[in-house]
């Protein structure tokens, strides 16, 4: 970073290094000016980005949600709809299915990932040889794009030639139409998400386990604690903060699920894998319902924040109880 013109001017204005000690008041005054100028300059890029691309869009969404927009491009016409768009949400079966499936998806996927991740992390701390290699392999899915994870499992879960059905037939069972049947589609999507994000939970838990103090375990062993007692009375309580943070990270992301569903099932069959983001995509972009889609966006943003805040508040109370 080259000093800018104003920065260069500033350099001249600052007294020689020895001067501040001689003139403390002038130096303080100078420093106050410097502070005020630079605290705004340093904050402004992020502030402008957030104002222009998070606050403004939200205002825009809310304003648009009060209208029925017809036509597209530069020729759209607005008709005042008041709160009608919001009323219509209640009767939208796709929207209702989206909420229900998103909640089911988030709970089961995040629960599964955390359980698998914790077991793997425990196993991994138990070995010394090869730990780095295991970690390298387990990190891989975190870095793979969601759409590629979708592509991978769309191939593997394919009814005709997928590896999963090949394995199922090998053990003597009938192949299942994992993604095409309403009974298994949501479970399959949840399974894929568990595959995708267990490694993230594993990584956080491993770091957490490795940072636990050793002496507590020595004390537990001297007291003759069994492996199970060690886990429930020593490891789990001490890991609680890490577990809660991981849960929060994953829950936030799980509510945003879109990529995998888009590629794996497209919300189907029927509405069995319809999730919030996908419903929104259909209503706003595919069906061009700008006003109604905006109302749905506002509703989803509102609900997501309420649900997650409630989850975090519950977490806070649990943390306080400990």
């Amino acid at each position, binding site marked *: 970073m080259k000093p800018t013109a104003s920065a260069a001017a500033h350099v001249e204005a600052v007294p*020689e290094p020895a001067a501040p000690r001689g003139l403390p008041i002038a130096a303080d005054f100078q420093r106050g000016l410097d502070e005020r100028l630079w605290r705004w*300059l*340093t904050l402004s890029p992020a502030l402008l980005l957030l104002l222009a691309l998070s606050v*403004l*869009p*939200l205002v825009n969404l809310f304003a648009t949600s009060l209208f029925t927009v017809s036509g597209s491009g530069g020729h759209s016409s607005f008709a005042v709809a008041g709160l009608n768009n919001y009323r219509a949400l209640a009767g939208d079966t796709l929207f209702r299915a989206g909420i229900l499936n998103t909640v089911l998806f988030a709970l089961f996927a995040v629960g599964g990932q955390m359980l698998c991740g914790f077991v793997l992390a425990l196993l991994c701390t138990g070995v010394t040889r090869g730990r780095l290699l295991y970690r390298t392999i*387990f990190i891989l899915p975190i870095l793979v794009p969601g759409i590629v994870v979708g592509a991978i499992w769309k191939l593997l879960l394919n009814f005709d030639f997928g590896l999963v059905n090949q394995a199922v037939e090998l053990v003597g069972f009938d192949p299942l139409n994992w993604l095409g049947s309403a009974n298994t589609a949501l479970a399959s999507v949840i399974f894929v998400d568990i595959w995708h994000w267990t490694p993230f939970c594993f990584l956080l838990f491993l770091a957490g386990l490795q940072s636990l103090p050793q002496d507590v375990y020595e004390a537990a062993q001297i007291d003759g604690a069994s492996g199970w007692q060690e886990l429930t009375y020593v490891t789990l309580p001490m890991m609680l903060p890490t577990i809660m943070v991981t849960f929060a990270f994953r829950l936030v992301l799980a509510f945003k699920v879109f990529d995998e569903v888009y590629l794996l099932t497209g919300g189907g069959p029927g509405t069995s894998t319809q999730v919030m983001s996908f419903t929104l995509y259909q209503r706003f972009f595919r069906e061009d319902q700008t006003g109604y889609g905006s109302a749905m966006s506002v509703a989803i943003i509102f609900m997501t924040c309420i649900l997650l805040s409630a989850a975090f508040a519950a977490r806070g109370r649990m943390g306080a109880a400990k």
Partner: protein
Amino acid sequence: MTTSPRARPLIVHALLIAAALLVLIPVLWVVAAGFRTQISLLSGAFWFTPVLKNFNEVLFSKTSDFLVNYRNSLVVGTLSTLICLVAATLAAWSLNRMSWPRWFVHIFLGWALVFHMFPPLALASAWFTIMRTVGLDNTLTAVVLAHTVLNLPMALWLMGVFVRDVPLELEEAARLDGATTPILLWRIVMPIIAPGLVATAILTFVFSWNDFGVALTLTMKQTATVPVAIAKFAQDYEILYTQMAAAAALSILPALVLLIIGQRYIVAGLTQGAVK
């Protein structure tokens, strides 16, 4: 931590290897599918003669834009990472080290956190409208801006952790020696937070590279990024499974390179907030 002395290393290794295979086999099977012909894949035969036809089609055929998509993804990832890092680092330093009123810091970071909870698709519709109003629809600039602000909360959070690690005495000593703010940031703060910058940069780039929903809604054929292109393979009238597999294999190359050269930064970045 050591588990109890009764731990049986063999069983533990067996379980870990099974888990590793569960991670690796799907990826490898799909990479392998990229080297198969459609007939060989559909027939389900285990053995096959590898062909390069799919990669040729994806990369060099006249009907494929994959190289353009790849370039778009690289441009968007690099630019949004750079802007995001500069904005987040300066802001994190400003909020932590300058005399902002506490309520202001709380509102700023609180809003970033709330914004992080919004599903990107809910914002994409508004971004789409705004970008069209200012004439940025169907441009890479629009995607760069969207990815920058999407990653900003995470970058703010991470850089906040790293900036707080810079010893306050060091900054005060530099001030006493007459360092101005730019010099202080460049000479004192930057070298200390450099590893944190690398970690944040890798994660920001990967998240931008991986984003599908926002890129899908803000781009058209010529501005599409890699994930959007991959989804197209699955949507055509006839799904081109082997070409989709080849494109998927090509798309995880940057992540593989980053995993090999920057694993310790990735781990540092991902675990930073959770353990500290």
